[in-house]
């Protein structure tokens, strides 16, 4: 008789067919967490990694010491970016379903994470995203057509056809090239920040990683190097509860918050309501100021929920309750910011519907233009010689030879 296993396996709160269960998410009331000085010693502010920094309360009122007191026009711009992200995601999903692009990844439900952070940072700060922070592109002024051409791998693709859809970058927007290999950007962002410090500049690097990806070695290397050299970096863990089918408990979230890793390395860790635009903004502002003052990096856990599928290759109804997203206790980031503006008397349902319509029309128009530059299957195509370029700065002889061979084959 074999003995029964004694191994602990993380509990997954609810599976398909079961009722959603978010009792595991520990919440703090909006406004309840103190905002320490940006130079505070990490050991004195460990509570930030346990509590939950929130600004918007259930009545959509901004409360407490983390309220960034933003002007209404800033809030309206933020809402616009968030709605655009959502509209864009929805349309692009449809184009994928129609077979126009090979793959897509939505950020639905976590738009505030990227947009608030990008707005709280300076244009000179460098961003190292994972694949689900498309909001950064909008804040940093990307043209919709340019993003779409990347998705289409067409003749105007910024990646020259080399990357899967959504693996954007932007040199003018200071957004780094997205990698398909999870987590690798994390230590790179720290290195970038170290270089900024070495050059005596006060720019900050910010980077994002999924809570699932935080299990990778790169996460540790980033925290360690950031701590050792006090690099001016903001390390964001987007805890959207799921990594494809794997619950965050399998990434260590069952025993402790992800924010708590920060204090373990002698760095502040902030646990933040990721669906609260104002809270994300305020936390990012705090960490950026801290970094710019030379006090070193911070780890920010953004507590949010991946409301859509992992990607167009995924079907979440196989591994979690269908009603999960609606029951997520931190609500929807777009609805919450919208509610706040309405509450302030600076927005209305009518204005909102008009905005959605306007942005949707923009997206549709951009898509029409983008497809004129070709799609994966139709229209103009990138020159296949491009396949051999940029492996090195200059083409070495063996790639010249291979390029010629392909030319001959296709002539």
């Amino acid at each position, binding site marked *: 008789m*074999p003995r029964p296993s004694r191994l602990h396996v993380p509990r997954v709160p609810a599976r398909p067919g079961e009722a959603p269960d978010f009792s595991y998410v520990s919440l703090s009331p909006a406004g309840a967490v103190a905002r320490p000085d940006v130079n505070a010693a990490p050991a004195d502010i460990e509570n930030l990694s346990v509590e939950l920094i929130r600004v918007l309360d259930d009545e959509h009122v901004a409360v407490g010491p983390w309220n960034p007191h933003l002007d209404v026009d800033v809030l309206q711009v933020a809402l616009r970016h968030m709605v655009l992200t959502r509209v864009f995601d929805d349309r692009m999903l449809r184009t994928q379903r129609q077979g126009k692009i090979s793959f897509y990844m939505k950020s639905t439900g976590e738009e505030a994470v990227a947009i608030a952070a990008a707005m709280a940072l300076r244009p000179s700060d460098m961003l190292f995203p994972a694949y689900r922070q498309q909001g950064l592109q909008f804040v940093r002024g990307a043209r919709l057509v340019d993003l779409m051409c990347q998705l289409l791998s067409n003749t105007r693709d910024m990646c020259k056809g080399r990357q899967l859809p959504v693996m954007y970058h932007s040199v003018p927007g200071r957004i780094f090239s997205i990698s398909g290999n999870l987590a690798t950007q994390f230590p790179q962002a720290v290195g970038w920040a170290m270089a900024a410090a070495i050059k005596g500049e006060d720019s900050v690097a910010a980077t994002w990683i999924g809570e699932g990806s935080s299990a990778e070695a790169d996460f540790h290397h980033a925290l360690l190097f950031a701590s050792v050299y006090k690099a001016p970096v903001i390390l964001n863990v987007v805890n959207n509860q799921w990594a494809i089918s794997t619950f965050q408990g399998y990434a260590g979230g069952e025993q402790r918050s992800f924010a708590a890793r920060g204090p373990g390395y002698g760095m502040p860790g902030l646990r933040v309501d990721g669906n609260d635009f104002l809270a994300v903004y305020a936390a990012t502002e705090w960490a950026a100021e801290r970094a710019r003052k030379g006090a070193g990096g911070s780890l920010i856990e953004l507590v949010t929920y991946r409301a859509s599928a992992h990607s167009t290759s995924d079907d979440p109804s196989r591994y979690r309750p269908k009603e999960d997203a609606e029951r997520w206790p931190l609500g929807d980031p777009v609805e919450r910011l919208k509610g706040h503006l309405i509450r302030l008397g600076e927005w209305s349902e009518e204005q909102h519907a008009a905005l959605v319509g306007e942005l949707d029309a923009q997206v549709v128009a951009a898509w029409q233009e983008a497809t004129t530059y070709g799609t994966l299957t139709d229209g103009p195509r990138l020159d296949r010689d491009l396949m051999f370029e940029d492996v090195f700065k200059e083409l070495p002889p063996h790639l010249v030879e291979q390029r010629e061979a392909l030319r001959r084959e296709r002539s």
Partner: protein
Amino acid sequence: MAQMNMIQALNSAMDIALGRDPSVVLLGEDIGYFGGVFRVTDGLQRKYGQHRVLDTPIAEGGIIGAAIGMGVNGLRPVAEIQFADYIYPAYDQIVSELARLRYRSAGAYSAPVTIRTPCGGGIRGGQTHSQSPEAIFAHVCGIKLVMPSNPYDAKGLLIAAIEDDDPVLFLEPKRLYNGPFDGDPAKPAVPWSTHPKGEVPEGHYTVPIGKAEIVRPGNDITIVSYGTMVHVAQAAAASLGLDAEVIDVRSFVPLDVDTLVASVKKTGRCLIAHEATRFGGFGAELLATIQERCFWELEAPIERVCGFDTPYPHAFEWEYFPGQARVATALARVMEVR
């Protein structure tokens, strides 16, 4: 016998291994409740429980490190790396540890870990879902390395790998999961049920590690290949009406040199075809081995048809992929030499 595609065949192999030997455990990202992103482990956690089919953190290095420790403690872990492109974070644990443990401890310790991972292109996966890293593992001493090209071999080789006391890296050409693929993406997909190697016994059997297979005997030229390219090569030879002898390498380490050499001695000509990039690829070792042993019988230079020495580009998948036309051109060239 049953009809199985490669996914079902692999699933059946693990089902049988789990059923026969309580020390077999599976671990990997999304393999448990969900059954794997390619569904290769579908249903196994339900059948064998969460303590034998483990979902893991996304940390390939940690997965292999832990699997080694499990292997040392008497288990037979079968670890899945979700894509071969993501095996590099585990490279140190594989080459410095798993492959060398028996040697460095003079046999005192060893870990019978099997690592499964989907490889190869042709699924529009772009540069990070299409790689074929066999060469960088073939050069490492102490780990066996195999790749099946059909469901029958997939099941038999996987059972053999799990039962092997040495570590085995098991590469799964994902383009073949659902059906044989002759390199023409425009043709409608063909299921494994149309192919004789889609007939798979339901029970236990093994395909020995270390043996190549002559999948088509012939006299004009030897085509040495593996994985997806076995099917492409056969189609290319057929398109030219060549009486080619097509060999499926199946096992890189140990390599079945005798089968290769006997064939090339007979045909006097040889073409090597693989999807991986050419420079420093496994084709170089195949070519070198054959040249060393068949020099006097060779009637023409051995040629290689491989992936170009660039990452696998999303937009140019079918220009990149060494398809039928490229193989056929090379075959014709080698045959032309008199």
